[in-house]
């Protein structure tokens, strides 16, 4: 079923915008709860070992303290499979520095924080291991998340071709530890009463939180309600329940009928809320002199914690992006005594495409071919790994449109050829890609009232992206009514179950089930039928996309960067970025542009600034605040232009959308690194590109 677009494609201001601008939109911490208590954690000061003693006396006797939670008195929880980092206060083991090892519940957040500093712990410390090097020998191939994205791939005889190809390239690229750092910290407010458990959480998916909580505490799902109305950013760090949610629940259980509130501090977000792990990637390419790739090998290593296996799957886009008769990918992971990493905006694809697209630029230089032409010469006709046709693929269209808009034609390919008043000027290009994902399992209810109003209920999430608005547009078109007739409600487990907002799958998944429900509702109403007086309600389950097994479903884009590098100091400025994207139907050009522009900005930040520096002696990230962990400031962001190609894809889902939340960050860092090379003649293969790597010695 495809839906006729009326509202879709229109610019509609975010429906949550006015409340946010006026400051009246409520976030989890601001829920008006009666007489809340406050929680503050105690964090371990060793990276590995055992707790052998805890002295809570002075904390407990501090006026205003309700209780000091610790491993001895905390309620027992079940250990959810594969989520060892949620095993809070259940044992004496310390698996990383800054792990929660106790918590103080008090009348005010100030008292809780002060009392937490009075808790004394005694440890039996064990030697820790926190550093990722490419030359470690304890890597393994992680278990694959899905058959579609294998952790290893072998096609043809890569080694033989790599030794015989006329042009050979063998390079190592590294990316830094990056933190999501949404503006709103991770926040939970929990009330445990006879009626059950109510949770206000800042999350990307209330249903997922409910499932984890019920599993941890062995609860009846019907007695758990999770609410998350407004979310101040997430970028992947709020997809899963983090330790702060569990600690709040332990506390709430100990003070029944009293709400407990807890918001992470910015410093705590650097150990409790996941991060993109650093990667070491090796790219080997064998090519013809004309640039056609004969063999392509991509291996990537990253580290996870001792608690959960998370691999930064950098080799995921490798099999999609270019034609290579001989192709090999290897994803490897090791485990360290560090906090657990997690998905972050375009997990895998973002750091992976940094390496791939820098290597392609190096190949273009080696072959003396324009980098756009090189990519065109390596365009695959079918998906190189699965052999499936692409449902739609417009990488070349994006490159060509971008080249025209960026005036690529007049680019002098010679590096270090432009110096404007002491600033070396260069331009670079890179491709973007992301898979067009749909998550299964969502349900939606639509209620039609005789006054012509439609209420759509789904436990979806808008983490500040504009999904709420765009999904309303989808619902309006699916119902064939104006946007103003639709009242879409999300962010509450009181509504039908929904998948989380991850993998740029929100609109594709929730939109599909809303279309299904709308279709059923319209069928029930019959052609021209009027809505019965008591109203009509339909609940539908998301149908499977039968094309998913017949086509390769991906979005594409091309990014262009202009950089200026100070010839003396090495300071890098990016006065201009251009992204041209082909992401299927754009439901709301305004919110979609914001997503793509935001992704590119985050990619700029990744290219130039972001790096969590881990001190191997202690095992923690030392620059754990926004004064020392730099993200791009407004002054770092120049002109960012976003353009979307018209793309009609009948196979991805009823709306024809491919998702825009992550595509924008893929490729930006490579475009900038390639432009830095063009400007300076210096190839920086290790992010971030800070001035110490470019200063004139």
């Amino acid at each position, binding site marked *: 079923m495809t839906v006729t677009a009326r509202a879709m494609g229109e610019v509609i201001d975010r429906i949550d915008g006015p409340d946010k601008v006026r400051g009246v939109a409520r976030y989890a911490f601001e829920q008006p709860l009666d007489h809340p208590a406050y929680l503050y954690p105690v964090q371990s000061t060793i990276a590995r070992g055992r707790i052998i003693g805890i002295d809570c006396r002075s904390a407990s006797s501090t006026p205003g303290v309700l209780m000091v939670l610790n491993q001895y008195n905390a309620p027992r929880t079940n250990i959810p499979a594969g989520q060892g980092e949620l095993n809070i206060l259940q044992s004496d083991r310390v698996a990383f520095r800054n792990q929660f090892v106790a918590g103080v519940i008090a009348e005010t957040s100030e008292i809780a924080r002060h009392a937490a500093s009075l808790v004394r712990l005694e440890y039996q410390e064990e030697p820790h291991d926190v550093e990722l090097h490419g030359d470690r020998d304890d890597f393994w191939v992680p278990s694959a998340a899905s058959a579609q994205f294998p952790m290893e791939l072998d096609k043809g005889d890569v080694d033989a071709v790599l030794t015989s190809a006329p042009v050979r390239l063998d390079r190592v690229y590294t990316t830094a530890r990056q933190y999501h750092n949404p503006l709103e910290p991770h926040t939970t407010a929990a009330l445990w009463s006879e009626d059950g458990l109510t949770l206000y959480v800042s999350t990307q998916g209330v249903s997922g939180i409910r499932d984890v909580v019920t599993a941890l505490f062995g609860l009846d799902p019907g007695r758990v309600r999770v609410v998350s109305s407004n979310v101040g950013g997430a970028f992947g760090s709020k997809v899963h329940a983090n330790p702060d949610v569990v600690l709040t629940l332990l506390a709430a259980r100990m003070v029944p009928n009293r709400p407990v509130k807890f918001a992470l501090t910015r410093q705590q977000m650097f150990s409790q809320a996941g991060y993109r792990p650093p990667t070491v990637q090796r790219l080997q390419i064998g090519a013809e002199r004309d640039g056609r790739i004969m063999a392509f090998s991509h291996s990537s290593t990253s580290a996870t914690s001792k608690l959960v296996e998370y691999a930064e799957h950098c080799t995921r886009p490798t099999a999609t992006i270019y034609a290579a008769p001989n192709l090999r990918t290897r994803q490897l992971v090791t485990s360290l005594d560090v906090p657990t990493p997690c998905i972050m905006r375009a997990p895998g694809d973002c750091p992976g495409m940094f390496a791939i697209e820098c290597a392609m630029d*190096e190949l273009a230089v080696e072959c003396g071919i324009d980098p756009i032409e090189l990519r065109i010469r390596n365009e695959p006709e079918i998906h190189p790994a699965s052999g499936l046709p692409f449902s739609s693929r417009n990488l070349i269209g994006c490159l060509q449109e971008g080249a025209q808009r960026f005036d690529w034609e007049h680019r002098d*390919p*010679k590096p270090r050829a432009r110096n404007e008043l002491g600033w070396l000027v260069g331009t670079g290009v890179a491709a973007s890609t992301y898979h067009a994902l749909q998550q299964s399992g969502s349900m939606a209810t639509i209620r039609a009232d005789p006054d012509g109003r439609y209420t759509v209920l789904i436990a979806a999430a808008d983490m500040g992206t504009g999904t709420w608005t765009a999904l309303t547009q989808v619902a309006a078109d699916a119902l064939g009514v104006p946007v103003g007739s639709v009242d879409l409600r999300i962010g509450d487990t009181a509504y039908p179950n929904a998948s989380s907002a991850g993998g740029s799958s929100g609109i594709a998944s929730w939109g599909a089930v809303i279309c299904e429900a709308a279709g059923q509702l319209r069928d029930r109403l019959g052609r021209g039928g009027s809505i019965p007086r008591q109203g009509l309600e339909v609940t539908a389950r998301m149908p499977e996309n039968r094309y998913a097994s017949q086509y390769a479903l991906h979005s594409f884009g091309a990014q262009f960067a*202009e950089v200026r590098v100070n010839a003396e*100091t090495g300071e890098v400025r990016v006065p201009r970025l251009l992204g041209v994207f082909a992401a299927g139907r754009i439901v709301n050009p305004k919110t979609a542009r914001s997503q793509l522009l935001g992704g590119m900005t985050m990619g700029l930040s990744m290219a130039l600034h972001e790096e969590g520096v881990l001190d191997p002696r202690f095992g923690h990230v030392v620059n754990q605040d926004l004064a020392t962990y730099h993200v791009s400031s407004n002054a770092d962001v120049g002109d960012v232009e976003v353009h979307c190609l018209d793309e009609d894809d009948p196979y991805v889902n009823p709306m024809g959308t491919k998702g825009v939340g992550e595509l924008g960050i893929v490729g930006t860092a490579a475009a900038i690194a390639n432009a830095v090379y063009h400007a*300076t003649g*210096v190839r920086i293969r290790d992010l971030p590109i800070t001035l*110490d790597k470019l200063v004139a010695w």
Partner: protein
Amino acid sequence: MRPFRYERTDDVAGAVALLSREPQGAFLGGGTNLVDLMRLDVARPDVLVDVRRLTSDRIEELPDGGVRIGAAVPNSDLAADPLIRTRYPLLSAALLSGASGQLRNLATTGGNLLQRTRCVYFQNVTTGCNKRQPGSGCSAIDGYHRELGILGISPACVATHPSDMAVAMVALEAVVHTLGPNGERSIPVAELHRLPGQDPEHDTVLEHGELITAIDLPPLPDGVRARYRKVRDRASYAFALVSVAAILDVADGMVRDVRIALGGVAHKPWRARIAEDALRGGPVSEERFRQAAEAELAEADPLPGNAFKVPLARNTIVRTLLDLAGPDLGGMAPPPASPDAPDPSGPDPNAAERGLDPNAPPAAAAGAAPPQDRTQPRHAAPPEEAEQPQEATRPQEATPPQDRAQPRHAAQPQDPGAAQPPNNPGAQPQGGPAIDPAIMDPEMESGPEPSGPPA
């Protein structure tokens, strides 16, 4: 955060008397640094004596032509003050390059001078730090010290003083007035902060309970040029990796007088007296600027993670002096000697966006380097040159450096490979031209160019 008492007094003397009786107490200015450190449990005062409304918040002209700044003057007001903008644009520029608008609104002049180091171990009570806890060891020396000191460091501490304002004040030879338990005194800002030595817990020479009441700026001689240039990790809202406050007085091609202060390199704003002495009385020349900078930095004792600050400081000193010396020497057009407009490093936030030197003087921004006009074609190369050379790795056929009339950029006699920092194996010049960046000219684009169709 520990519980504390909050006190106000009627006058300055009362505040000094009160704090003198409270060994664990502290004065509270804007609180933008102190309160942060209290939250982190780094600062643990049991009483705060609020002096924000106590000392003067006025900026007054002194009879000798100088200016007196009350200790409570907010950083924003000081930067915007017409007297300061007219007579000491250097100070405005330094202030505006620091922190953010919101912080500057709250921060006071006294508090700014006494803000504490940003060393990450100092700010984390779970790691050793001699400054925070004497005798607990310096975690930075063998750890993360990218932003820390290269001059005047000690085995006990390598921290830097983070203030931009103080660097400008040292160059301006400002004097701090205090009232302490033992009465009033006046201390040149250059002598206010200490080197770490064996007791880095003392940032300054002030005694407990000694209150900064005002700062005097002496008049600047007529005709001098001054500039603040800050190099940092992002275009705004970051502390200096290296900053240079320079004041240059040139007559007939000779350096009549010069003052140079460096930020981001030491435990105190660093007055570069060796460089000044080397320059004073001699002819103005780029080579001499370089030699003077190198002489100053010969004393540098960098750590592995901040060795880049040595060339960075050298290049920034040379460039700042060149810019002050004027276009004849290859500098940017000079800022006006005593202009209405301050140096725009802060006031012109768009400079960074335009890709221009964020601290470039207005003349350069307006004239010499037109901001990118997006309606114009940006690439100078004629279309036929867009054709790729067959071997992209071919070294560029360089126009010999001596052919160049009027070198505009600091010509550094260096190997092109030197663009690669020695201990950074990731950065390899690939196919880079065998020519120094500093001697590139736009004219070179029409130089000999390898041509031929792609294979």
